[in-house]
């Protein structure tokens, strides 16, 4: 007789207890907008589901001295509406706003998004650009912190053991001069899976003219989001100007060429990424001067 055991811990303690019995057929659910589809598709009708959603204490967005911390159960809708994130992690709020439909954003969580490790996930490059780390708890009740990039193996696989659960996401508050932005191209404007997405973090110098630091991550161009040295090199040390836009756009095209050389989608993506370059550039620097916006071919 097949049986799906459903565990619904109400707090961390109960979660740890539930994790103690975890085996190969244990699945963590936190929203379930992807997991349910996977279970159906793979015809999995037996095992154990641990539903994280009942742990209300994992639903928070907190500003703590130098860090921002998100409970793993924070939904995308909560991220979008958070003034703290809008201020300190615009790229994450923007990415959350582009995920799926309103119904999905109301249910799906940031913890689940990381665990699901989908190659085109919108939040993941944004979290990476924010230098985010993930707090994991195991069946012994121990917690440890890992980088997002270390958890996501790509193409739907993560590095977590069956008795581990993501409980928190945290990233440092970027001090003066930090700016972030996210952009995405799908095949329609809403409820679409990214063909390409970008999250960018840059730090300007005191004069707000020169880029001191950049972290640029691209998603949907491979099994998982990756950091683009090509694009960062084109930005760091440069002054905000129309020429910089052209270098930025050209570097993104070069990055697409390097990432998906020979793929049938290359022809489109290497051109279309100019649209993302424009969008992200405007979001990053649009307030600084009118002239940076212009892009005439």
């Amino acid at each position, binding site marked *: 007789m097949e049986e799906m055991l459903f565990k619904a811990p109400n707090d961390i303690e109960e979660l740890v207890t539930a994790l103690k019995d975890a085996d190969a057929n244990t699945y963590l659910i936190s929203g379930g907008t992807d997991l349910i589809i996977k279970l159906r598709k793979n*015809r999995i009708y037996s095992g154990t589901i641990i539903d994280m959603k009942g742990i209300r204490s994992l639903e928070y967005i907190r500003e703590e001295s130098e860090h921002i911390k998100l409970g793993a159960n924070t939904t995308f809708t909560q991220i979008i509406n958070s003034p703290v994130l809008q201020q300190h992690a615009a790229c994450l709020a923007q990415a959350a706003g582009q995920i799926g439909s309103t119904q999905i954003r109301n249910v799906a969580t940031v913890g689940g998004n990381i665990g699901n490790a989908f190659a085109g996930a919108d939040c993941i490059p944004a979290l990476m650009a924010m230098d985010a780390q993930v707090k994991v708890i195991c069946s012994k009740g121990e917690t440890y912190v890992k980088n997002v990039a270390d958890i996501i193996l790509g193409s739907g696989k993560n590095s977590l053991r069956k008795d581990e659960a993501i409980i928190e996401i945290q990233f440092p508050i970027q001090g003066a001069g930090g700016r972030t932005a996210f952009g995405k191209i799908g095949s329609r404007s809403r409820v679409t899976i990214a063909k390409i997405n970008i999250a960018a973090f840059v730090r300007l110098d005191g004069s707000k003219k020169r880029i001191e630091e950049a972290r640029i991550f691209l998603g949907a161009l491979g099994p998982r989001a990756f950091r683009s040295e090509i694009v960062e090199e084109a930005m760091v040390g440069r002054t905000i100007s129309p020429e910089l836009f052209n270098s930025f756009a050209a570097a993104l095209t070069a990055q697409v060429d390097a990432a998906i050389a020979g793929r049938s989608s290359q022809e*489109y993506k290497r051109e279309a990424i100019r649209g993302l370059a424009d969008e992200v550039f405007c979001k990053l620097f649009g307030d600084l001067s009118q002239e940076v916006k212009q892009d005439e071919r």
Partner: protein
Amino acid sequence: MKDNLKYVGKDIPMHDISEKVAGKIKYAGDMQLPGMLYAKLVLSDIAHGRIIKIDTSKAEALAGVVKVFTYKNSPDTRYNSHKWYVGLEVLEDEKLFTEHVRFIGDRVAAVIAKDRYTAERAAELIEIEYEPLPVITNPEEAIKDKGYSISRKEIKSGNPEDIINRAALVFEDRVETPKVHHAAMETHVCVAAPGPGGEITIWTPCQVVFQVRLIAAEVLSMPLNKVRVIKTTMGGSFGGKGQPVLEPVCAFLAREVDAPVKLQLDRTESILATRTRTATIGTIKTAVDQEGNILARDIHMLVDTGAYFTNGDAVSMAMGKKAFRLYRIKDQKYVADVVYTNTPVGGACRGYGSPQIHALSEIHMDNIARALKMDPAELRLKNLVQPYDLDPIGGPALGNARVIDCVTKGMEAFRWKERWQKPQNPGRYVRGVGMACATHGNGYHGGYQDFITMSLRMTEDGGAYLNAGIHDLGCGTVTTMKQIVAEVLDIDVDKILAPEADTLVSPFDIAGTQASRVTFVCGGCAMKVSEMVKEKFIHYASKIWACKPEDIKMENGTVYKDREKDQKLTYGEMIILIQKKFQDDISETYTYTSPANPAVYAVNFAEVEIDTYTGLVRVTDVLAVHDIGKAINPGFVEGQIQGAIQMGIGLALTEEIKADRNGNISGDRFSKYHVINAPDMPDVKVLLVEEGDEHGPFGAKSVGEISTCAIAPAIVNAINAALDINVTSLPVTPEKILKALKNKRERQQTETILV
């Protein structure tokens, strides 16, 4: 036309809308019958091959599995699901389960189990070994292969070849349209149950119960009278549920296991294994004079019917005929070649070839206008048909064809001249406008037999019962019929009962909800039978009151003798009197034969905004102008048009069931097959030209199909005009747009160098 209409022309809500909104309606998928079993299909995962070995033992061994069916234990009968009436001769090439698979999605087997999940799991345990055969997915390769090239159709008037050969100005285009999925919210589903006397009952959201009965009876070698088909509430069809796909299979399974069986497809199965819009590659050549008058035209359509023939011929002829009914072209030739490919099967899809032929002719018209430096709307106005024109190939007369009114009124309402001439901004986002015209029909008159029988009875409490084999596809057919009856009898719509089709109790209807015939033909019958009942009622009332029939007045459910309004009776009271005195029933049964098949027209104006960096297009404004004759229910008409524009935008921009060389399908699920959703839907404005058709009930003509025929070319024309490119392959994806822009840049650079 009758003035002061009380029910016709009013926005009366759909008969079951509150139940639908409240979730109370039971669809076929909600049905539960005692002892019901669940079936799951096994579909071919290669595009062409023969089964060498099929091992069902593991599936059969699974607990809960009742039986597995393959070609080995099912009828070998070949049939064509397109056959909608008994006398229709068709090429028969489909079987319940095949040993020779012809596309990814072909039916190979079915598993019946006690529950859905067991059936699904068992289906995966069936092991099949194929001998692969060569795959052809490209229709242009298929036409060169004798086994794939199956039929040629030709229509001709005058002598176009000579004129084109002599003409100074001849323009040519090639336009491709894709296979698309109907994307009804309800996937295909059917329930069948055997009866104790060897009869079978089939519940299905279908478009033609008598066609379902015919196909099921043919395949199962049963008499028609042993098969009962009941139409269930439709969760969307758009032609997709026109041909019986699941019904013969489900009926067979239920009979074999002697238990009720439910067969429901998931989305991927519905996309792959039912029917699609027929893909076409059209070439068109038009000779014009300097002023833009069309002198002659030559059209060739390569029609990709997919892996089974179904309606390959019918859809080719249907689209060809439309080419003679939009513009005044005396000399014109239309040739269609129908080919098989190893791809999902073509069938009926809203417009039945009309969106395809109009994509070809209307994109082409804009290219002619561009070459002649003319306003494309003006070019059309020079050439469009006029009211009461005749069909040059001898088809039904066009009737009160008001397409020129649609163009002129639309141009004004859309501010066409102003927007068309507006210069482009050079920035990232470019806006442009386009327009297109289209024509469609009103039933089968002139092509096939077209009649329906209806019975109408006035009840003892002043209501009416319309017994007719009608099929409401969710567009308001039931309420439309009620409005017509209500108008003739002057009773409240809510007092009329008009159940949907059930072959056991409904009088015969030859064609169901097909060919945009319902309002025109079925509505015509409802009006006629209502008038007959009214006449009978008045006849008896005048006998009872010993007066002339013309002195009897019927008003709002009451009857009185003229000038004696204070002594009125309700209809019910009068009927009881008639029953007592004359022992007769106020009912009539009438077989109405469609008297005509006038053309119906739509003109669409569209504005698009193109992101020239990403190639993404948003349709920002649409005006749909319709020559509708008379809107029986303007709310329904607008609903039809809103939905049709949504479908047409998909055809223009995003929707495609695409097969690669090996027949693998991309776009077999909604995450990869994008219909236009709410955030991308423009505000659609509707403008109705209501000039009345003499043969339609209260002057009404069709809207369900015509409404989706002009929008795709209008959008493509807007894109091409705005960007000065010429993309003629639908859907116009971002990829195609960026490629065209790149080619244009390179061309311009070359030209600059040469200068």
